């Protein structure tokens, strides 16, 4: 896959680009949100291959651990800020200066979502059921597996599909950034799911809808609004933009709506 530097709509840069580039090399305004930046934050400077004792290097090199280490270059404060940004997307920058997107957040927020769906649906059953009966063990295990497949599939495969469609039409960012955004966008839904274990189903539904709206706005802001503000996604002049943009918007909204419906109504 080659670079598309020449096209006015493309600013995707290969992740496996060898030349380390520093931020700001491409002429972008100083206030740019770095998640949407066309060049990766200097990977060689921040990548820290984990050095363990005599066993880990041989295991690590076989599994290619070092190539993922640069996406786990986060601290507790940074993850907390990103989670807060996903809960309050109108405030602050998701990817702050000097940092790149991470894969820690998507992975563990997704696992938290799976466990929270399982736990809260069980608690909900106990609260709502007439004589204390709940699903059998095997049904619960099937639910757990289904939740795992859907949530992990959404965060990793769904984000890859959206990234691929965007890339096909010549827009888009790094795959890691897209996956990072999709992963963190689950956070409002996790909180909404935990709040919505009351016996009042209207309240539960409203809470999940609020959570879903915040999550969808976060996705929209990170994947579209920032690009439009920076002038990298210019829909104004080109008629040919409407159909791809609509298609991408429809696909990603449908995916997100499907996830929201699953979270709201699963296993009742």
């Amino acid at each position, binding site marked *: 896959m080659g670079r598309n530097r020449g096209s006015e709509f493309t600013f995707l840069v290969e992740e496996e680009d060898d030349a380390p580039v520093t931020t700001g090399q491409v002429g972008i305004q100083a206030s740019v949100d770095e998640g949407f930046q066309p060049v990766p934050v200097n990977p060689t400077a921040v990548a820290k291959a984990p050095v363990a004792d005599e066993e880990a290097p041989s295991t690590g090199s076989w599994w290619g651990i070092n190539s993922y280490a640069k996406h786990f270059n986060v*601290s*507790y404060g940074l993850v907390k800020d990103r989670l807060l940004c996903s809960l309050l997307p109108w405030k602050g920058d998701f990817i702050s200066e000097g940092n790149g997107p991470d894969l820690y957040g998507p992975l563990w927020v997704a696992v938290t979502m799976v466990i929270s769906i399982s736990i809260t649906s069980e608690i909900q059953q106990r609260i709502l059921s007439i004589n204390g009966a709940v*699903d059998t*063990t095997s049904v619960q295990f099937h639910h757990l597996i289904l939740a795992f497949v859907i949530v992990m599939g959404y965060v990793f495969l769904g984000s890859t599909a959206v990234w691929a469609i965007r890339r096909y039409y010549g827009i888009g960012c790094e795959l890691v950034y897209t996956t990072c955004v999709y992963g963190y966008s689950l956070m409002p839904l996790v909180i909404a799911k935990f709040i919505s274990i009351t016996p009042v189903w209207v309240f539960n539904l409203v809470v999940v809808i609020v959570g879903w709206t915040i999550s969808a706005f976060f996705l929209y802001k990170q994947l579209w609004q920032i690009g439009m503000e920076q002038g990298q996604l210019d829909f104004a002049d080109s008629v040919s933009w409407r159909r791809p943009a609509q298609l991408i918007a429809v696909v990603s909204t449908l995916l997100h709506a499907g996830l929201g419906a699953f979270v709201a109504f699963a296993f009742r």
Partner: protein
Amino acid sequence: MANPFEMQESTLDSTIDESVWESIKRDIIQVGRRLKLVVLPGLSTEQIQAELRDWELWGPLFICMSLAIILSVVANDDASLVFSVIFVVVWAGSAVVTINAQLLGGKISFFQTLCLLGYCIFPLLISTGLCFLWNKVIGGTIAEILQFVSVVIALSWSIWASSSFMADARFPDGRKLLALYPVLLFYLSVAWMILIGFQQHNRVAADSQAPAQAGETPADATDVGDYDEVILEEGDASRRFLF
């Protein structure tokens, strides 16, 4: 001075000539010693690290198998699914948690940590045994409350035992909590599977029989006279997972 080759041969002879029972007993004693050292308080992280330096996975395998067997025996149906899910969650979960810690820059050994995480599931195995006992002996709501309490205590114990080791793994600044959170999630998911593994009630049976048999407790459905209804309702219940 002793000939090193003679010394090597005598060491080999001492284990090759011993009986099978001796070999197994040695491994059992080692597993038991490690269980005590890892799970009970009193040892520092360095001492635990020194003990687990020659790691082995027999202990974790024994613990995981016992847990999976007890839960699959207790499951009313689809025991093989329960067994495989437990197995996969324990091993894949430990691996992912360990790799996550390594990716965050922690100076830990993969198999050593896998060994430790496996041994630290032992309190949850004890609680599973207790839950099984209470299910058989007491039953009903009191058993459920006791199960919940014992699993929560075992969960705290497991997290405490493993996190004190993981926390000392020389992480870069600000990443200790990031490495400990997946450990919490891992033991929470194992504890959760233990709790749902001891589900006693059949939801479909209770719902469908609610008007006519409102006075009956769900345990009555397992009487011999209701055998056919139980089979039908369990089949419905397992088909309901596709909501």
